[in-house]
């Protein structure tokens, strides 16, 4: 299967290891991965803050670029960016042609774990990682895309992993895009409930499918000198060995 990778600007610039891990995992699952370098951003920050004209520009560029290669599917290691693609049609209330193109593209665009489990039928990607981990359901992936069982199935197949369910796994981490800087105290208050649960669960790592959630969680874990590390699902699935000690927390 030929998959076109939608890397997301956040992962591209702030967390490239998620991208390289995702490529690795997709190859192991038997895909040919292509990456169109013309891509930049899906425009989610603009759409979420109310800047629809700017968001429309991003959407049109995105649609044009990704239509061209005619891949079998488009895959992204981000629930929120995948969800944004699924919302593109809302940006064209007056233009039926663009709306149809947006809908067609959305139908082909998958979040990583959904692609692996639901389309490729793959749950075991040959990963190994020793330690207790918990999963955080990123809101867009969970509620916009219905991703819930897929990451859990993938994680349970990782050799050496002890999976525990957080009592508030499906609660928001408090990121919410510009919300995290417009209302930082509320954002951190919400985050602390998540951090509290993570600490109580006694995990080595907290795993999620969205880099934005991971940034939010990681930012507080490091600020509070926690030894818990954050990992993207792709990084976990790409790993072959126990957790490297790159993290010098207290």
């Amino acid at each position: 299967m030929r998959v076109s990778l939608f890397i997301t600007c956040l992962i591209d610039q702030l967390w490239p290891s998620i991208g390289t891990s995702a490529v690795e995992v997709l190859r192991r699952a038997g895909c040919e991965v292509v990456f169109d370098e013309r891509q930049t951003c899906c425009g989610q920050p603009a759409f979420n803050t109310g800047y629809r004209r700017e968001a429309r520009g991003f959407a049109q560029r995105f649609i044009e670029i990704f239509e061209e290669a005619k891949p079998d599917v488009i895959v992204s290691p981000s629930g929120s960016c995948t969800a944004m693609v699924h919302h593109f049609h809302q940006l064209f209330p007056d233009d039926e042609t663009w709306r149809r193109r947006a809908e067609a593209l959305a139908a082909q665009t998958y979040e990583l774990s959904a692609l692996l489990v639901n389309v490729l039928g793959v749950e075991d990607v040959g990963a190994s990682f020793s330690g207790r981990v918990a999963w955080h359901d990123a809101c867009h992936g969970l509620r916009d895309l219905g991703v819930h069982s897929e990451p859990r199935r993938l994680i349970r197949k990782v050799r050496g992993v002890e999976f525990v369910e957080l009592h508030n796994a499906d609660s928001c981490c408090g990121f919410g895009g510009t919300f995290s800087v417009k209302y930082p105290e509320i954002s951190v208050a919400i985050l602390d409930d998540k951090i509290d649960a993570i600490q109580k669960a006694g995990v080595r790592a907290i795993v999620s499918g969205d880099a934005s959630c991971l940034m939010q969680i990681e930012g507080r874990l490091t600020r509070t000198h926690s030894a818990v590390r954050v990992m993207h699902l792709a990084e976990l699935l790409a790993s072959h060995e126990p957790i490297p000690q790159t993290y010098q927390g207290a």
Partner: protein
Amino acid sequence: MDHLTPETFKQNARDALNDPQLRSALRNLTKTFGDRRQAVLASVDNWEDLRERARSIKDETLAHLDKYLEAFADNAERAGARIHWAHDAAEACRIVIRLLQECSATNIVKSKSMATEEIHLNAALEEIGLAPVETDLGEWIIQLAHETPSHIVVPAIHKSKKQIAELFGEKLGIEPSDDVAVLTGAARRVLRQRFAESHAGISGVNFGVAETGTILILENEGNIRLTTSLPRVHIALMGIEKIVPRFADLDVFLKLLPRSGTGQQLTAYQSLITGVKRSPGDEGPDEVHIILMDNGRSRMLAHPVTRQSLACIRCGACLNACPVYQQIGGHAYGSVYPGPIGAVITPQLMGLSRAEQLPYASSLCGACREVCPVKIDIPELLLHLRAEVVEGTASATAAPDGPMKRKPSERLAFRFYAFVWSNPRRYERGLKIARLLQRFGVRKGRIDNARGFISRLVPPLGAWTAGRDARPLAPRSFREQWRDNPGGRP
């Protein structure tokens, strides 16, 4: 509580976060209601179907609201009720005042009604010496405390037992007690006297049935039954969106509302009142008045996204599920309707320019949409309102009130982002420059090299680092690594 307005949301929220008693009360609310709701959902096997049916009933009603409203009015009048039409809050208050004066009522009892809070009815009546007594326990507590409700269903949830005991001691001369039964007993004794002597009762309405002209009101305490049966005159205030087409439609809503609102299969009492009693000797009021109120609701009909706001059945489930509400409570929203539904209807009822902070006070997590019994897509509504804030025009949906605050630096930032990101080479070049400047953009050059994180950023991103570390830009982006190894071959 005059200082609490939507405009001061940010400060209100900050105050709330620093109030440990409030936060403890909210934690209790969230956990208790969350558990109860989960437990009670198990008593239906078709929850999703019910939500779907409820939503389609509401959609059908709203699409023909004029027709159903007329049918309701005509049928209620045929059964002897008097129907009054109130275009706005002022008109609604005027009608209530006139009706109370017509019947020379001085002792007025009132049951909980968010619509009456919305129009500040009590304040209007107090001004002319006709203050009603609130009879719902939670509403009575906040009336005594001169506060506003902080939750649609449990208005006094922000108050602890101790605070309530002290309040009762101060206002009623009662020995403070830790026992909820004692406090409740005190309320019963005092209010029973008022019921016995009441001339007029004011209530809200949960649903109005077009087919029969029936109004349905739900409760647990019994004060609504007393308010609507004992006094000679009953005045009911109803938002125009409360209509459902058929009597049989009530079944769906009776399954959804108590479960969503309080985790009960059914509340203790439902009163279905059609018109007025048939003969003077029968029990019940001599006069039943129903005030149909618009007050900004019809404007919401003008767009399919905003129209769903009118499907709300005021259950409060979205408040209980909302991570923001859970942290800051209801008062921070500065209006009668707090939480997720408040964040979308307050700007529409009061004017977007007065409440433009509210649509942004959400992480868009979607928990509200998930629990809403009528499937209102609140995140979609929030995004719609945010777009209206940015566009800065008074659209059909925003109240014609005034211009939005101009945010030139934010606008410029997004134009800049759109410009740089719209071309891959510009994007890469821009981020390479940012990588270089990273050290200097960080206040006092703080990259904690031992851990690799940034602990202080310049504004506006400084808001991030107040509570969290930040990841620095990676030394090599994904696309640079891809170029070295296209296809990701090992």
